[in-house]
């Protein structure tokens, strides 16, 4: 351990603001891109299912129409 106390670790020899700002922004940015990718994945899967159900409904409606005429 390079630092004598936890306070010294946070202070980073006076450069604490810059160091923690950099690390914070970096990991937040990485987290955002990762989470966004996963959310998009779920969204796409849902879209696939919805589209499929819609097609099935259209098919059913057509069949009913044909049967009635």
């Amino acid at each position, binding site marked *: *351990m*390079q*630092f004598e106390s936890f306070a010294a*670790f946070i202070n*980073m*020899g*006076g*450069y604490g603001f*810059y*160091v923690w*700002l*950099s*690390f914070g*922004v*970096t990991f937040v*940015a*990485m987290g*955002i*891109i*990762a989470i966004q*990718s*996963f959310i*998009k*994945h*779920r969204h*796409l*899967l*849902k*879209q*696939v*299912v919805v*589209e*499929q159900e819609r097609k099935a409904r259209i098919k059913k409606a057509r069949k009913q129409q044909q049967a009635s005429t």
Partner: protein
Amino acid sequence: MWKWLHPYAKTERAYQLCLTLQPWFWAGALLCLSIGTVWGLAFAPQDYQQGDSFRIIYIHVPSAILSMGTYVAMAIAALVGMVWQWRTAYMSMIAMAPIGAVMTFIALFTGAAWGKPMWGAWWVWDARLTSELILLFLYMGVIALYGAFEDKQQAGKAAGVMALVGVVNIPIIHYSVEWWNTLHQGATISKFDNPSIAPEMLWPLLINLLGFALFIGAVTTVRLRNEIVLREMHRPWVQTLAKEQLANTQQRRAANQNMTEGN
């Protein structure tokens, strides 16, 4: 020699490959990033000139190197797509673009936060910072061009051409330090035989570099799967897969709710 690669040109096989690789990438990335960051922040010795502010190097240098590396990887993917007519190559190219842009942003931001205490200004028009900014513009151009086309097949090809044109800029970025002699210090770890950095400082840097690389790989696998699902929406295998996965997550959610209610 490259025959074993060809099955992965099929989207289904590529999707499966991503699924298998993904957990390893995530686990490796998490492990390397936590070890490298903690080591770099708490245990690496202080720099005698820059004090503790030099610890930004542990994210600045990996993101800067990999922002260029990702662009080169994109260009290679585009070239593969052109030569062998692989659709998956274009898809992986566009899957990498946003994460490469994020890496470039991180390199720029940490560079600015490092420059403020060292040079006294958030932004200096120094060669490397400037070329990193140009790299960000190039990424944005590729993403914007891809987004402008309705037909995603055509979009992939067009964005591929632009990625290849932009890759000409990469050597300019790399040699800019020699070309325009400026404030920025010289490269730190490219000289492996005679490194200008102490080994106990270098190790965490290399571990973090690997961690960033694995993280890029992990996000790319997720985004490549997204891209495949988006383009193959009407194929039966995607439809069964979507149903299965959604059903799985719903089951898991229901199980979780039962547990909390039981408690």
